[in-house]
C-alpha cells in the first residue's frame, strides 16, 4: 500500500515535469501549428542559465533568481527563432518541424562549444535537500518544488488567458486566426508573444530540471519526444488536455515501471498512446471547428 502511494506520488512528479515542458509546446503547437523541435534546446538554455547564475548569486538564492531570468532568455531565443525562421513558414508545419530540428542541432553544438561537452552541475539549495514523509510516502522537496512550479505556471496562464486582454486575443487567434485578424487583432504580434511565453516556459522547465539531473547539451532531447506525446494526447492548444495527459502518462509510466522495468514502461506507454489515438485521434479535447481538414 505504501509503495502504491509512493508510486502515485512519483507518477505525479513525472507528470509535473512533463507538463512543465509540454505547456509551452501546447501554446506554440496549438496556436500556430508550429512544431518546435528546438523547444528542447530552450530547456537546455534555461538549465545553463541556472548554471551560470549560481556563480554570482550563491547556492541559496540563485535558483529563484534563475527562474525569471531563464524565462526571459529562453523567451528571447524563441522570439528570435520566430522572427527569423518560423514566421516565414506558417502553414508548413512539417517544414517547421524539420527546420527547428536543424536549429536544435546547431544550438546543441553551440552549447558544447560554449560550456564544454561535459555535463555540469547546478547545486541544490539547502532548502531543497531532503524531503517530507507523509503517510508512508517519501516526498523529496525537489519534486514538490517542480509540482509547485507547474501549479504556479498553470495558474498564471489561466489568469493571463482569462482576464488579460493580451491573453484573450491569444485565445481568439487560437480559435480562429482569420476571424481574429478581421476583427483587428494584430495576429503577428500575438504570435510573437505566444512564442515568447511558450519558449519562456521551456526555460523555466530547464531550471527545474537541474534539480533532477545534470545539465548537458542533450538535456532537452531526452524529454522532447515525451512532451510532444503529451501535447498530441491532450489535444492541440488544450491546457486542460495537457494537464490530464501529462499526469496520466506520468502515473502510467510509474506504475508500469514498478511492476516491470523502465524500458518496458516506455514501450507500454507508447502502445497505450497509439491505442488512445485510435479512439480519439484529435486528442482528449478538441477545439470545436467546422473546418474541413
Amino acid at each position: 500500500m505504501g509503495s502504491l502511494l509512493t508510486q502515485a506520488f512519483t507518477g505525479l512528479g513525472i507528470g509535473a515535469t512533463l507538463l512543465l515542458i509540454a505547456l509551452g509546446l501546447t501554446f506554440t503547437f496549438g496556436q500556430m501549428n508550429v512544431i518546435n523541435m528546438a523547444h528542447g534546446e530552450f530547456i537546455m538554455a534555461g538549465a545553463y542559465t541556472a548554471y551560470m547564475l549560481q556563480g554570482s548569486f550563491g547556492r541559496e538564492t540563485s535558483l529563484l533568481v534563475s527562474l525569471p531570468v531563464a524565462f526571459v532568455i529562453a523567451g528571447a531565443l524563441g522570439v528570435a527563432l520566430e522572427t527569423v525562421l518560423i514566421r516565414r513558414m506558417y502553414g508548413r508545419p512539417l517544414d517547421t518541424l524539420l527546420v527547428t530540428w536543424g536549429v536544435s542541432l546547431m544550438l546543441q553544438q553551440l552549447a558544447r562549444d560554449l560550456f564544454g561537452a561535459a555535463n555540469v552541475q547546478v547545486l541544490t539549495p539547502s532548502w531543497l535537500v531532503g524531503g517530507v514523509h507523509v503517510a508512508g510516502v517519501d516526498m523529496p522537496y525537489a519534486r514538490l518544488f517542480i509540482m509547485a512550479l507547474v501549479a504556479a505556471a498553470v495558474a498564471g496562464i489561466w489568469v493571463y488567458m482569462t482576464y488579460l486582454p493580451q491573453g484573450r486575443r491569444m485565445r481568439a487567434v487560437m480559435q480562429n486566426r482569420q476571424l481574429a485578424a478581421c476583427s483587428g487583432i494584430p495576429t503577428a504580434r500575438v504570435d510573437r508573444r505566444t512564442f515568447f511565453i511558450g519558449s519562456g516556459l521551456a526555460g523555466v522547465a530547464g531550471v527545474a530540471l537541474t534539480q533532477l539531473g545534470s545539465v548537458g547539451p542533450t538535456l532537452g532531447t531526452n524529454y522532447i519526444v515525451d512532451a510532444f506525446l503529451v501535447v498530441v494526447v491532450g489535444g492541440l492548444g488544450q491546457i486542460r488536455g495537457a494537464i490530464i495527459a501529462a499526469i496520466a502518462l506520468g502515473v502510467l509510466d510509474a506504475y508500469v515501471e514498478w511492476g516491470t522495468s523502465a524500458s518496458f514502461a516506455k514501450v507500454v506507454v507508447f502502445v497505450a498512446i497509439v491505442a488512445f489515438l485510435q479512439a480519439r485521434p484529435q486528442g482528449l479535447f478538441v477545439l470545436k471547428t467546422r473546418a474541413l481538414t
Partner: protein
Amino acid sequence: MKMPGASGGARNPWYGRIGFALVALGFLVLAPATLSDFGLNLFTKYLCYAIIAVGIGLAWGQGGMLSLGQGVFFGLGGYAMGMYLKLQAAGPGKVPDFMSWSGVEKLPLLWKPFQYAWIALPAVVVVPMAVAAGLGAMVFRRRVRGAYFAILTQALAAAFVILLIGEQGYTGGTNGLTNFSQAFGLDLADPTNQRMFYFITAGVLGAMFLLARQLMASRYGRLLVAVRDGEERVRFLGYNPTVIKVIAFSISAGMAGLAGALFVPVVGIISPALLGIVPSIEMVILVALGGRSSLVGPVIGALAVNYAKTSLSNRFPSGWLYLEGLLFVVVIGFAPMGLAGLVGYGRSALDRLRGSPGASPADEAKRLEDEVVPA
C-alpha cells in the same frame, strides 16, 4: 502542366531512358573502375541510403506523409538479414554468440524461421511492409496525419530502439548484430565479394527508382498526389484515401527494409544506433536536401549528404554538426525544392535570360504552383 515526379504527357520518353542509361553506366562501370576497395564499400553504403531516400521521397514528397520513424523499417530489414547471417555463422543447432553471453541457451521462437533463407530473404521486405501497413491502416483510418503522424512515427522509433536494447538476449542489445564473417558462403572481407554487393545494391537502387517512377506515372500516382494536396476532396470523389496512403507508406517501408538488408553484409553491423530518432531524421534530411518533389532528388541528396558527412565530419567533428543544421535550415526554410529544385530554378532562370518563350513569368508562377510543397 507537370505533376511533380509524375511524368508529363507530351514528353519524349527516350530522354529519360537515355539519361537513366547514362547514370546506370556511371554506377556500373565508372564507379567500380575508379574507386578503391574502401571507397567502393563506402559508396555502396551511400547507395543503401539512397534506396531509403527513394522510399521517403515517395511517401513524403509524393504522398505528404512525413515519417520520422523510417529507421524502424530500415532496422526491421537489417535485423531480418542479420539474424539469418548470424544463424548461418553459428551453425545448425547452435545459438548466436551474444545469446550465450546473455544467458539464452535455446534458440528463441522468433529466431527459428530465420534459419532458412527462403523465409529470411522475403522477410526483409515483407516484415517492414506489414508493420507499416498495420500502423498505417490504424492511424490513417482515424485520419491522424501531418504533424501528428510525424510525432507518432518518431515515438515509434524511440519505442523500437528501447525494445531492441531492452531485449538483449534476443536482439543483441546496444551492440546490435555484428561479427558476420560471411554471407551466403562468401567471405565478406574479400574485395571481390564486396564488389558484387556493390553491383547488387546499385541494381536494387535502379529497380526501386524505376518502380517509384512507374508508380507515379500510373493512375495510382496521380491519386497519391491528389490525396496529399486534398485528402477530403479525394474522399468525396469516392476513393478511399486510407488505402492509397497505406500503399505508399508500406512501399516506402519495404524499400527501407531492403536497404537495411543490403546494408548488413556491406557494413557488417546493424545496431539500434543506426535506427533511432536521430538517424531517422537524418534519413529525411537526405530527401529534403536533394529535393522531395522529384524522384531523382532523394538519390542525389543521399549521395551528396553522405559524402559530405564522411569527408567533413572527420576533419571538423564539430563543424559538421553546424553545417548539417545550417543546411537543414537553409534548404527547408528557403529552398524547399532542394538541390533538384535549384537545378530546375536555374534552368528556368536561364531560359528567361535567353528569352525562351517556354518560360514566361506566368509559366514560372504556374510551375511553382504545381510543385507546391506538401504541408
